[in-house]
């Protein structure tokens, strides 16, 4: 049984945390803020997170997706804002890729 998308996001954030000056409060689960206001990731850390998640999605689900979005750096509606929004967004991209 494949793990849920949120579990995958939590895994990549946990692996990224040791390299961050201030770790993502991953114990807050889906609510943990990643990027934007009150987020601890800078744009390069966000790049690392997104790339690691793309690779994990590929390994876990066998689906190749690019998690690129026009609202990536938007302060309010970015899909990269929290663990929960990132998981939901990545899930939607995986479903899209499976349909096409």
């Amino acid at each position, binding site marked *: 049984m494949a793990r849920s998308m949120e579990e995958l996001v939590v895994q990549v954030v946990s692996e990224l945390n040791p390299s961050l000056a201030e770790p993502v409060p991953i114990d807050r689960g889906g609510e943990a803020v990643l990027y934007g206001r009150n987020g601890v990731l800078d744009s390069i850390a966000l790049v*690392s997170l997104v790339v690691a998640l793309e690779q994990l999605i590929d390994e876990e689900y066998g689906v*190749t997706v690019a998690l690129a979005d026009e609202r990536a750096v938007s302060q309010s509606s970015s899909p990269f804002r929290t663990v929960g929004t990132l998981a939901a967004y990545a899930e939607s991209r995986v479903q899209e890729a499976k349909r096409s």
Partner: protein
Amino acid sequence: MSPCVTLITGASKGLGYRLAEHYLAQGNQVIGVSRGAGAIQHERYAHFEADVADEAAVLQLFKVIRSTWGSLDHLINNAGIASMNHAVLTPMSAVRRILATNVEGLFLFSREAAKLMRARGGRIVNLTSVAVPLKLEGEAIYAASKAAVISLTEVLARELAPLRITVNALGPGPIATDLVRGVPEKKLNEILARQAVKRMTEPKDVMHAVDFFLSADSEMITGQTLFLGGV
């Protein structure tokens, strides 16, 4: 030590083919991409058929590179097309085709290469053209696409510098390849007359400059465009 992995777009003929041969001779693992079949048989050469602007195909290609070679050291964005025509006589289909290959494809390969290079840094070299500084008549869209390449080079250099990836552009003069086959001799001579060194660019001139950009010692060389022939 495993060989450097060098990815070259537009590798089935012309300059891309010569670059592939050149980096094979230097001991690199070379991966070529083009819309048609590859023309090189070598134990360190792998060829993929793909349209460089087809996102799904390109993602698949990078997936194979990651699973087979694990990383990428060099990307040479060489694939490019032109369509010589007066602006008034240029169909929108040609405009879209040129921008898709020369700009969208180059961006897509750079984006995906950066993901693979981020672990240990890398080198991206983009092919632009003297058509930009010479403002060549009859090449409006081609020149605009190559101006976009310079702009992308300069911005990507800044965005990718924290990942230890350098991004530079090289602008050769006319080279005897398919790209200039349709250009009348009179027009070619006019272009050469505007260069300081008034001869056609040879592949070896390009390789010399690409070697410089790819060198491990070139970590401070980024965001630059080098035109050949003294333009």
